[in-house]
Structures are given as C-alpha cells and as structure tokens.
C-alpha cells in the first residue's frame, strides 16, 4: 500500500475506534434513528401519503436532521486535538496535514454512513407496503450521504478554528443553516419578489437544497455530484489553511 494511503488508513482507524470506545457513538446512532423514525412516520405522514416513496416522508427531513447531528458528530475532530495538545504530537509525526485531515474526515463520514445504513427498515417498509422505485431510493441515499459529507467537511473546518467544541458546533450549525436557507423555497420565494434574477441565482447557487432535491427525485446528475464534491474539497482545503495558520506560518 502507498505510504500516504497507509497513513490515512491508520488515522481513520484510530478515529473510528475512538467513536466506539465511548458511549457517544451508540447514543448518536440511537438518537439519529429515533428522530428519523419520528419524522418519517409522525411528521412526514408516511402512511397518510399513500405512496410507496421515501422522497417526501423520509429524505425531506435529512437537511434539517443533519443540521444538528453532523456538527455534533464532527465537532471534536480537531478541537479536541487542540485542547489536549495531541495536535502537536500528530503533526510532528511523519504525516502530512492533508493526510490527517482526510483520515479524520473519512472516519467520521464512515460513521455517519453507518448510521444512515441502519435506517434500512424504512426501505423494508416501503417494499412491504407497495412497489417503490428502487432507483429513486438509491439516489436518495447517495444524496443524503453527500449532504452529510458536505456538512461534515464544514464542521471539520470549524473544528480546526477553535479548541472549544461548543463554539465549533455553533459555527458549523450557522454555516450549514446558511447552506440550507440560501436555497430553501420559502426564502428564495421572498428573494424573488424584489431581487434581480442574477442575485437570486447566485445566492441559491450556494445552497445544498436544489442539489439535494434532484437526488430526492431520483436523479443523479453530474452537476449535483460536482457541487457536493466541491463543498467538501473546499472545506477540507480551508481546514489545511486554518491548521497552517495555527502553527504561525
């Protein structure tokens, strides 16, 4: 195996076992699944809708659910390293900052993917009750995972900004909230009334909502993939800039 891949893998493994070494991981997964069930069946009106689809009752809630849960899962990634001082240890190992950032990001993303995968009973329910479009459900899951990854990348960056996990949490919630609001229909509807079309488009362009919506509809478009990928890459690159600034360069 290539040396940098090996380093990423070593760091990923450490972070992931770190999650499961404490009760945090289990609490997180339980809360995530409970909230998912509550939103889908109680608020989403899964049964009342009478259609064999997950788009509206299930995936619709994910941008809002992730808004709080993803920053909670990722806030400690760098903030804790800074608080305890292990940052100094990690960055004086023969490891590049990029490898450490990617390793940590992938570990937390894998953890979120696991939590998401555990929602499989919902899929079972739709298949039991009717004949859903399997492709749309698959696309929904891909979109949901990318959405979580984008929020997480933002959280990784805010986590590197401070040694306080709470501040990192609040910062990333605010940024992710903006990523939602910028393209959320009630807000864009308000904007359309007075702003020029160009401005509306610019603001909406920052939002995760239209991109996530097309995944919800069952469309995997290259442009949407590119959007999420660029949010992730930009945020992780920002993290490396923040870390370099910390070391007084």
């Amino acid at each position, binding site marked *: 195996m290539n*040396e940098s891949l*090996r*380093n990423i893998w*070593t*760091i990923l493994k*450490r972070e992931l*076992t*770190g999650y499961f*070494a*404490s009760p945090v991981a289990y609490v997180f997964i339980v809360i995530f699944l409970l909230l998912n069930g509550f939103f889908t069946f109680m608020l989403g009106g899964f049964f009342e809708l009478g259609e064999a689809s997950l788009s509206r009752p299930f995936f619709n809630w994910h941008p809002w659910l992730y808004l709080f849960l993803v920053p909670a899962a990722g806030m400690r990634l760098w903030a804790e390293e800074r608080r*305890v*001082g*292990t940052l*100094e*240890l990690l*960055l*004086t*190992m*023969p*490891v*590049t900052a990029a490898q450490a950032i990617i390793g940590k990001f992938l570990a937390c993303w894998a953890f979120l993917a696991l939590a998401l995968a555990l929602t499989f009973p919902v899929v079972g329910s739709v298949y039991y009750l009717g004949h859903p479009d399997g492709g749309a459900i698959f696309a929904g899951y891909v979109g949901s995972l990318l959405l979580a990854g984008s929020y997480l990348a933002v959280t990784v960056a805010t986590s590197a900004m401070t040694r306080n996990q709470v501040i990192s949490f609040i910062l990333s919630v605010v940024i992710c909230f903006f990523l939602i609001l910028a393209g959320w229909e009630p807000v864009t509807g308000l904007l359309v009334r007075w702003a020029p079309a160009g401005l509306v488009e610019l603001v909406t362009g920052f939002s995760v909502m239209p991109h996530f919506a097309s995944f919800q509809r069952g469309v995997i478009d290259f442009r949407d993939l590119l959007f999420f990928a660029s949010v992730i890459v930009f945020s992780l690159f920002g993290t490396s800039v923040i870390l370099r600034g910390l*070391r*007084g*360069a």
Partner: protein
Amino acid sequence: MIDVENLIKEFGPKRAVNGVTFTIRRGEILGFLGPNGAGKSTTMRMITGFFPPTSGRVRIGDHDISEEPIAAKKLIGYLPESAPCYSDMTVNGFLRFTAELRGMRGAQIDAAVARVAGLCFLEGVLHQSVDTLSKGYRHRTCFAQSILHDPEVLVLDEPTDGLDPNQKHEVRQIIKRMGQTKAIIFSTHILEEVEACCSRAIIIDRGTVVANGTPAELKTRAEAAGSVHLRVRNVAAETVKSKLGSLPVAGRISLQDNADGSLSARIFPRDKSTRADLALSVAQTATQSGWSFDELHTEEGRLDDVFRAITLPDSVKTRE
C-alpha cells in the same frame, strides 16, 4: 545530526526566538536551559517541524525540516511539553497507533511496543485507558512514544517534569544510555539534571543564546568559582583578614561568623592567573600561623548561580 542556523520566530509583533544557532552531533546530549518564556519550547517546536520558522534553517541529518519535512520527521522522536496522549485509547492502542504512523508493521510493532513498555515500566498499565492513568504514567507513555522507533534524534521538552524522584532517575538513565549513539536535546529547569547527563548545555534568554558550553565550563563563569573557602576556630577575624590579605595571589576576602563560633572566610583570587595557586597558599598560611581549621576547599561554582546571573533581568539584579 541537528543543525540549527539563525532561527527566528515571530508571533505578530513579538519575537519569541531571535537568531538561535547551535549544532548537536551524534553522541551528544544537549541540555537546553532558560527561564520560562525564554523560547525553549518554541525552538523545539521549530526543530520538530510543528512551527515553521519565520527565518533560519533546521537540518535533521541530511534533511531540511522545511523542505523535506517527512524525511526529517522520520528521524525524530519528540516529547512535547505537556506530554499529550489520546485519552480515549489504551496505552497499548496509543503506542501501536504511533508505531503504525512511524511505518512499522505487524511483528515489528509488537517488538517495539514490548521494548518501550519494558524500558518505561508500562507493562502493568498496557491495557488501561490513558485517561485513568496518573500523571507520571501518562508522561512515561508519551515518552515511550518518542523512543518507540529508536530515533536518531530525540527532542524532549521537560522529560522529567511531574515525575517522582525514582522515575526521574530512570528517565535520566534512559536518556544517558541513548545519548551514546544519538543526538539528544532536552529542556529542563532542574540544573542538577544538566550536570548529571549533559555533555553540553545552552542557556537561552529572551530568544537568544546567552551561554553555550560544557556544564564544567559554564560553572567557571559563576562569581564564586575559583574562590577558596576556609573555616577556622578560635582565631580573630582581624588576624585572618590581615594575614590572608597580604598574600600576593589573594584578592577580595569576605568573612562570616558561624553559629557554632567558628569563622568562615571566602578568599577570591586576585585574577584568573592566580586561581591555581590560591588554595595552596591559603593552606600554607593557615598551617604556618598555627590556626586550627576544619574545612578548606576550592569552590567549583554552581550552575544555579551562573543561570541566575545570566538570565535575571538587570532591574532585578540591581535591586538585590
């Protein structure tokens, strides 16, 4: 092995390290001394590649730490100041993690972990979580991490801080043993430690190197170094003063009455060239005059005094 050249580090307008230069060869143990905030840790962080220097160069072996950071870092073992460890891991897990980052595999890791666990007396706590450990154990765990890959260069920031006297002794023994074949730099506040293990010492104050030499050399810079101490009984102070004062090799003399009725005299040499003969002349004078004395020795000078004299701000010196 370690080449530090005109190293400068600025944090905003503040210059924490101001042109530090030194070299450490293989087989040398360098003691790095200085008051708090003198720039010791900052210098060590630049040597280990954590802080990029504002200007200046650091070479580890054949590698420049800024240009080939990975190759240089591979040669270094580093114990940061607060001895940080991942608290959610077991000692074993932590050491295995660092071993993997150091590029070891499989049986190599087992052997390395077993070796350092033995050296640092960690066998009993290997499977305990780091956050349940006492400070001494946590410190030794981080120290174990720094010697895990048997590095060519060891950078230790206060390696004996927070250890009990037995543990301090053990850590010093390990450093001394490793120092025979490696280049080691360690910072400390304990001056006896420097005398006990270092082949050379550097004193740094307000970001600049103010003294660089073997502990013995540094000690001769103490004010009291080379003076002769004589303790006599039942002799009048005046007699002592006049007799010794007339010696051509003697300079200033200070006298002090002791609680038990004896009299202590400290005789300073007139100048450096008379140092060697001073003790003999004093002894001859004392025996010829028939004084009964129970103590006569030449002061070596104490590293403490040198350290204080060099690093105390001028304002404090005049107040004393």
